């Protein structure tokens, strides 16, 4: 029983970390209909930025988060306005290709600057844990999980209660109608991509704090995780990534306990397939996003 509780607790906090990775990816996919293959690269860029601030400036990764978020927002805004916007009306495969190429450019640049060694942000607390009976809850992953919840709730509030959020939602539903209402779609898309890049940077900071990262294997895994979690949770709902991440994390953790560690991915994918069979829109996704109008 203790092992089951430990696996469940770890699954929840790990799921929160994965949700943090996926929330920006889900936002861009849901609003812009862009499957952003450079999401993992953006997360790793944020990780390097936080690592640099920690190693060379001595800044704690949590204090570095605002700096990373602002820098990544600006980076994402510029990328969207200057690059992705050029093909925003093109078929989805072209945006896939573009973001994949963008990912390669970013990662090769990072490799050139930082080499390809694994890096980590070494803190005195992130790898420590507190005990609840026989269950240990790691501080670092718990903080990432709390951050994911706070960000998701905050994002939902922005989307539902602010003019910016309404503009983002309207642009995602019907770009032509949004333009007729005076919304600058190009700016809204850039803001959306900037927010997603900022969230990716925050997720990268947390990954660097609780684990390790490198420019070769980490980005692909993060992009894949974000893709699966977005599909599992469903698009069009700000809480989709959070729910998907938690379910994914728990499925992996409990699955690894019941079978062996080599089966964790298979179990998580089985959960995804089963979910899509029962609910093709994902756990809490909205069907309207499959029938939206692109002008």
């Amino acid at each position, binding site marked *: 029983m*203790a*092992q089951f509780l*430990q*696996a469940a607790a*770890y699954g929840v906090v*790990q799921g929160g970390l994965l949700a943090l990775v996926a929330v920006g990816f889900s936002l861009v996919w849901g609003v812009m209909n862009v499957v952003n293959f450079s999401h993992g690269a953006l997360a790793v860029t944020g990780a390097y930025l936080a690592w640099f601030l920690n190693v060379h400036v001595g800044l704690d990764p949590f204090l570095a988060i605002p700096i990373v978020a602002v820098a990544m927002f600006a980076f994402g805004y510029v990328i969207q306005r200057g690059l992705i916007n050029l093909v925003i009306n093109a078929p989805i495969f072209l945006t896939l290709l573009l973001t994949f190429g963008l990912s390669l450019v970013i990662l090769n640049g990072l490799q050139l600057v930082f080499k*390809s*060694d*694994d*890096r*980590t942000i*070494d803190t005195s607390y992130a*790898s*420590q*844990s507190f*005990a609840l009976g*026989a269950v*240990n809850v*790691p501080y*670092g*992953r718990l903080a990432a999980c709390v951050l994911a919840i706070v960000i998701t709730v905050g994002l939902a509030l922005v989307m539902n209660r602010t003019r910016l959020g309404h503009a983002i939602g309207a642009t995602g539903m019907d770009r032509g109608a949004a333009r007729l209402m005076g919304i600058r779609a190009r700016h809204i898309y850039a803001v959306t991509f900037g927010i997603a890049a900022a969230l990716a940077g925050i997720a990268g900071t947390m990954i660097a704090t*609780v*684990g*390790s990262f*490198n420019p*070769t*294997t980490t980005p692909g*895994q993060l992009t894949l995780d974000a893709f699966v979690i977005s599909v599992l949770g469903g698009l069009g709902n700000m809480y989709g990534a959070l729910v998907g991440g938690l379910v994914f994390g728990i499925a*992996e*953790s409990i699955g*690894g*306990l019941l079978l*062996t*560690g*080599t089966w*964790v*991915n298979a179990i998580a994918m089985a959960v995804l397939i089963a979910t899509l069979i029962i609910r093709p829109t994902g756990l809490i996704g909205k069907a309207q996003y499959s029938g939206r109008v692109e002008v």
Partner: protein
Amino acid sequence: MKHRFAAPATAGALALLVGACGGSNTPSSGSTITFAAPVSQTGAFGQAEGLYTLQGYKFCVETLNSKGGISFGGQSHQVSLVTQDDQSVAATSAQIVDQFNDQGRKLILSPYGSAGTTAVAPVVERNGQVMVDANGADTAIFSHGYKNTFAVLSPSSSYVTAIIDALAALNPAPKTVAIIAANDGFSQHAAQTGVSEAQAKGMTVLPSATAYTGSTKVGANVTDVSSALIAIKPTNPDVIIISAHLNEAVAAIKQASELGAKPKLGFAATVAPPTPAFISALGKSSEGVIGSTQWVPEIAASDNIFGNAHQFLTNFTNRFGWSTNQYPYQAADAAAGCEALALAIEKAGSADPAAVRTALVGLKADTFYGHIEFDSTGMNTTKPMYVVQVQQSAFVTIYPSNLATKQAVWPAVS
């Protein structure tokens, strides 16, 4: 099928090899001999082990050429190295070696790792190429009767057993150990022989002697080994041994702390601890971790190409910008494999793969890497393994005791 041993003439071969360095008998320049290798430059091994292997091959070829190349038939032959990125995928390694064969490249140096070498060995056999294996230690590679693959490194069976032997010599010696093993041939076999050695030394393996095939088995090259640690946690072992590669070892040490599954005395791991990437990935958490290694610079070994072990270390680390405190032993493996191939060519007096193969069968060479001699299956079983501990971000040899430069910090966990 067994290898036929030719009469050894290592000293003569070495003398011939370095005879080209100068003097009035300097041979004229002959054709260039090409060594071909599929080496991981991207993917799971590209960032560390593959890079170290590539650097070892490069350093060997550069050094050989600076000493006049390989000398036979009254001519001095320069050596060129052709490599291609296998993306850390075993099947790609095999495809690349097939392409090498199409290009007439018959002298092969192995890719990094047992999986790649396992995939390449039958291709080499089929094509009549000859391969010196520098970084594939899985003994399964040598159970198929291949005649054209020769490994300079100690086999997988010695990785965890060396750790167990080193642990048994420490004070306090552990009474219980848990072994996490990755789901690849090398790691599983290393764990299997390690369990036997632990039991022979009176240690109890937790949660069970076969757990490395079940609850403590993890995927190869994964960054999440929480399932194995959750299985180990209730048993509270003295030592956790990770029989795996870099990613799994880094994950295990990080996550053990998160899950409250830290061992009472310390961590040990195959492959990962004696690599610079291990320290850069773990920072302070790498301190005290014990690891088995194929080579340490303290061994009393030398040859006429690289000099002694310390000179190899100094020259290699200078060439590629490594610290002498954090040297990648995989590069020594690679250089030794390349050197063995060069010695065999010199001995054969030809770069013909069949002649080189015959020369490898009978090769007995004392090198900077230690003694190289192949048994009937192609393994170098004469070379021992060594054990190091990370102390203040440096690799410190702690076993065997006659090579130890410092005492082990033990217990290693606070």
